[in-house]
């Protein structure tokens, strides 16, 4: 499964290291994270990680492999 997650705000490079398994690209006012998600546990784990770092998830979608 591959996912694309958009969070509000432009993430610093340092903060992006909290998601080493995802690639990051900063677009105006948002950061796009994308990459493989192993399973549902990983998916929920990611959500918790965003939340615990105070990041606001704007969009979360599965993309074709």
């Amino acid at each position, binding site marked *: 499964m591959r996912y694309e997650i958009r*969070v*509000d*705000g*432009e*993430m*610093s490079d*340092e*903060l992006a*290291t*909290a998601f080493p398994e995802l690639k990051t690209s900063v677009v*105006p*006012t948002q*950061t796009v994270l994308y990459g493989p998600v192993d399973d549902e546990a990983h998916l929920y784990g990611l959500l918790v990680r965003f*939340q*615990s*770092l*105070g*990041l*606001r998830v704007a969009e979360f979608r599965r993309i074709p492999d």
Partner: protein
Amino acid sequence: MSYRSGSHEGSDGRGGRVVPVGVTPDGDPVLAARLTVPTVPETFVRRERLVEQLAEGAGRPLTLVNGPAGAGKTLLVADRVAACEPGTVAWLTVESQDSAPGVFWSYVLHALRHHGIAVPEYIRGPARPGEVDHSLLARLAAWLNGRDSRVILVLDEFDRVAGSTAVADELQFVLRHAGDGLRLVIISRTEPLLPLHRYRAAGELVDIRADDLAFRAEETAALVDLHGLPLSAEAARTLTERTEGWAAGLRLCALAAQRAADPESFLNDFEAGHSTVADFLLGEVLRAHPAETQDLLLRTSILEKTHPDLANALTGRDDAEPVLETLQRTNAFVEPLGHSWYRLHSLFAEILRVHLRVRHPGLEPELHRTAAEWLSRAGLLDEALRHAADAGDWELAAAELVGHLAIGRLLTGLAAERLDGLFAQMAPEASGPAPDLVRAARELAHHDVDRGVTYLRRAEENLPERGTDDAAAVRLSCAVLRVLAARVVGSADLAETAARDAADAEQDLPADRLERSPELTALMLTDLGSAQLWAGRFDAARATLSAAVEAAQGLPTAFPRHEALGRLALIDYLHGRPGQAEAHARDAVAEAERSGLPVSYRTGMAQLVLAAVAVDRYDLTAAEEHLDLAAATSAAARDPLVAVELAILRSRMLVARGDSRAALPALDDMTRQPLVSAEPSPWVSDRIAMATAAAHLADGDPKAAVKVFEEQPLHSPESRAAEARARLAAGDGERALRILDGLPEPHDQGPAVDVWLLLTRAQVVEATTGDSPAAEGLLLRALAAARPHQLRRPFLEAGPWLGRLLRRRPALAREHTWLTGALAPRPAPAPRREEPARPLTEPLSARELDVLERLAQLMSTEEIAADLHLSVNTVKTHLKSIYRKLAASRRGEAVRRARELGLL
């Protein structure tokens, strides 16, 4: 914040044992921090609209404060709690380990008591981490419901146990049944698994959500103003938009602006920027602090709570105290917990950890290791283990567990499952005696003896030389596990050798260290006594088990004490002392009740002994109840003694009910089944043989009974008497008499054995010599011995000769009405036992059980419907289905059947 700890010491005043309430069941002294209401900083903005919402919550059972990290949930509630009367609000900050229901409820009880709510002792507490006795929750709810004043229970950070349906269900149950006595406030990042829609529909829920928590522009202005930065209405509006009213963002923003050279342009720049709010602002605030402060914050971000000394250990400096004090004074990041402990806001800690990894790659495990060592020295084992595990240093973690003499906590007590889970991650490379001891304990706890013994051997080969405390701790832990392994294989010799090694190692340890781990000694003694009992060393077993019972009281030793008492009861029973057996068995049950051991975790031995005594009195209904309770325990399958006694008792019940033929197959199974133990017990097989012979005899087949004794010669007085009865029935009275004459004068026999011996002799004398006066004399003595304990079975199963004798002596019959009352309507041979409560073919649904429960409370259909928020018709449908499943046609019948089946 002061700790109100004075009110919860002392006993329950009813002669019960005192559980020290000041310490958690698994001895976590940092607990106080979790029960403390967080302090509200001076810069907190009280927002009336939210205060009103919370006030509204006081009238409803449930208040939910839901929002993302840093939304200001905790402070909102903490501010209100500070305004409440002491003794009306309890606060608990939930942690992830609390998803084990037993742990969760033990902390809830702690929180209530800590906050001056005198939860009575009879409510007790859970004894197992993974499970909580439902009756405990019912008692708690009923007590809350019956109080004059209500309790507000605040559960902060509830999202940490969001995945536990058990905890949610149990909370729901307590909330429902506590009526007006309980108000629940749940603070959580995610919605709890409670049936919120139902509470909402019934108007029983106050919902405070992210939108409510978000700051409005005028509130933003007030907050920034408190930081000494006047803000125009327009600027406040823009800032609110930029942060979406997020409290943590606003607070950081104000702090960063305070320190900026030009606050106004800082705010303008921030508003115009697009960076992620928290990370950016945190970076800004950090930059404003001196390098030492930044370094301290980064390094202590790996801790949940920090202490100046611990922080110094992590930074390698000695300035933590002033730094932490300054941070607290300026309301940046840290919050005081009292007793010099501080907590970092979890959102900031998360972000700081990310920065730590970037700035100091590879430092994190080292910090965890240093923290583990410091915490271990401070006696905070639980926290130390967590950090040792995070450091990936399993040798350190295992050494800490063993060094604190805490290996027994893997086997018993509330921490068992958590520790087991922690060490399940242990790397296979971790080597040395301590990791091997931990592995052995885990395998033994999982009943894998072979693997447990393999690890134990490896640990033994690498035992450290005597000399230091730590070496003694390793040797003691190893010896205790060897006793357990010896018990499982049934070797009293090995157990006794290991116990001597344990005593030896104890000599090298300071007494106070041993006292902190009472469960270690209690476990060792119980296992040793069990091995001795299996081997037939009854006197030694009795002494050892009594010592186990005497070992320190309290929750950590509850299970070993329960088990030791049950085995003492068995020893009494085997020696024919029903009175003492019953007393010990009742103590064992009371111990389990008192410490909240769920039925499935109990040993079942006590219930078996109670059943055995009841059978001897011919109280078959009571015996059946005790047998069912014994069979419901997990030990029934694992403990060979329980399995054997269960089979013997079932056969006796069948004989007593006249179905002696059915009694044989189960006993046959027992003889063929190799018992779990490697070493056979000298007396256990005797008991199976005796029961088999008794079943043959009752079945009218004395030859088969005699054959049992010929194949397996037995030597105890009781079994010799049984053989004499079989010989007599088979027509060999002379042989019977010789057997009895060959018996030594009974000594140290309890009345139950005496009765059998006297009665058998009377029967044999009467049959062989026709000497009625001599037989009558013996019978009189048997009656006198049996009377105090109402032992009816020997007489009822003695055969027709007894009836003849009693008919000749009507005075005797009149004098012993306790017996003759039962003797007169002698049950016809082979009557079918009355229809037993048939088990349900289809279980009741949770909803049907809800309805049934209310049915038992004599509620009408309409009342049930109202109480459960259901329509009357739905309730009627449930009722029909309940009647069908219980095969009942009326309410009363359904309730009675449900009670018989233990559903109510």
